[in-house]
């Protein structure tokens, strides 16, 4: 408790995001797919650990559990809830990054926060784009090897986008 009292307001807010976002991402599935209590409790426990130790492997496990639940819950459907769930996971990740730039007493600087907000906003666009593509191809017969091709395409697109962004940043 005394550790929390020494935290700045910004850091407390980021820890709150770490605590809440994974749980909300699980709950963002369709109402009929609301997970069992034990699964929600597991996510909550992991997110508490994530909030307490943002750089620990608990964070990876917490996000991995959410992704696993979505694989079980969504099946071959493309629910719109996947987009807010993706944004929540991204918010948790960015919060943990901001918290891990230094010791726990280090305040989160506005310049760094602003930079990561812009980055998160740019990266977040990928979620609705992928969702739109998924909705567009949903229900159509799957050509053989479509998932593998899709995977390759995704990787290529990511690399091309990354190179483009890097070049832009260097020029700036």
């Amino acid at each position: 408790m005394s550790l929390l009292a020494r935290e700045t307001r910004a850091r407390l807010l980021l820890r709150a995001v770490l605590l809440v976002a994974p749980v909300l991402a699980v709950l963002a599935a369709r109402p009929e797919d609301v997970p069992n209590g034990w699964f929600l409790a597991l996510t909550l426990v992991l997110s508490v650990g994530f909030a307490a130790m943002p750089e620990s492997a608990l964070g990876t496990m917490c996000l991995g559990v959410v992704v696993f639940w979505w694989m079980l819950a969504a099946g071959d459907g493309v629910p719109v809830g996947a987009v807010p769930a993706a944004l929540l996971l991204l918010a948790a990740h960015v919060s943990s990054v901001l918290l891990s730039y230094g010791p726990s007493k280090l305040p989160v600087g506005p310049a760094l926060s602003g930079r990561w907000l812009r980055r998160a906003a740019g990266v977040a666009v990928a979620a609705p784009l992928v969702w739109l593509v998924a909705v567009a191809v949903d229900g159509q017969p799957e050509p053989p090897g479509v998932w593998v091709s899709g995977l390759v395409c995704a990787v290529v697109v990511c690399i091309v986008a990354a190179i483009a962004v890097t070049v832009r940043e260097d020029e700036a």
Partner: protein
Amino acid sequence: MTGRWRPTPALARAVVVAALAVVMSVIGAAPAVMVLGAPFILLACFGLLHRPDSEPVISAVLDHRWLHEGQGTTSRLAIRDGEDVEHVARLMAQTPYVALHPSTGLAAGLADALPTIEIGPRRWGRRVLGEELVCLTTPWAGYRWGPVRLPGDSLRVLPHTRRFDSRTDTPRPVGLVGVNRSPRLGAGVEFADIRPFRPGDRLRRISWRVSVRSRELHVTTSPAEEDSGVLLVVDALGDHGRSSGLDGTASSLDQGVRAAAAVAEHHIRTGDRVGLRIVGGDGGLLGYGAGRRHLRSVFDLLAGVRAGELPDGIESRLQLRVTGGSVVFVFSPMLGQTIVTATASLVQRGLPVVVVDTLPPGVSPRVPDGVDPRLADLAWRMRKLERDQVLAGLAALGCPVIAWRGAGTLDDVLRRLSRRRSVPQVVTR
């Protein structure tokens, strides 16, 4: 100071979540999972693409290495080969008597505006700043360098001198050129007397008004203006009381060093020659001198004062090496027999000696472990009674004993000493 770039937990998390999402979406034929993983694929790619290949070299540099108490300086980071660096975080360990800003010693910022830490020493002396930890991060938080340790830099903190100014002449000006009125007549500016003209007098000294009235040439005379020799003796045989830095309580050594620095600055500014003798600790002797450079030497010697007993051989035959015609200021709590004896012998030689009592009021000694506090208190009270007797004895010998009060502390004493200089005295040799 060098280190090694390592992937951050954030990059590992992004890579793992992205891979999990891709694998699960393919295995489970769940396109929704790809929606969740898409931002992480980008984050992982950006992090990996900024894989650094440089070898940064970091050093911390202080803007100033010589400061007075209460002044401040800035510690700046210099990074060589830091083109891959986006963010820098540094943590400086706390050091006694050194105030940091930010007070936690933590500072961070982007590489285009490297974080600085402001440093304000609160006590004179040689201060070695605390060790520093520095951590560098690449863009997209993909790789981290460090934290690496930087050794603490050292500072020379000179004593604070602001609060002393005296308007009184120094007694016994027997030097060459200065601002103190000499007992002998010379080419000064202040009026001393009018007397009949003698061969050799300067014509511009003729007082025409008196000459016309008396029908005989008269000239005005004035005292010569000369410098004085001032010897400062600082008692470092012990440090009594607790030092809390410039704004807090002062120990006896704090009082002594600061008062000596203030008196030295005042006299050197007025053109006097100042010498310094440290009694105790590592000792120290600085001959008479004048000018800013000499003042710097005085401050430097004072900044290096450490409390400590004299070696056995020296204790019994302490010589302060005072030249005739000097004024001696002894800054001491007068608790050591050696310094008392040395002071008394100077007074008996007929030298003008002023004792500045540096014992803080209400001070009590530290009680060692295993000693009854009541016994220690009793011993201290007896020691103070002895000290009162010593001070009374010095006063009876004609040596003024005063407490340091800052500006004007010495005015009255110096005025009385100046008046006394014209009175014939019996000198014990």
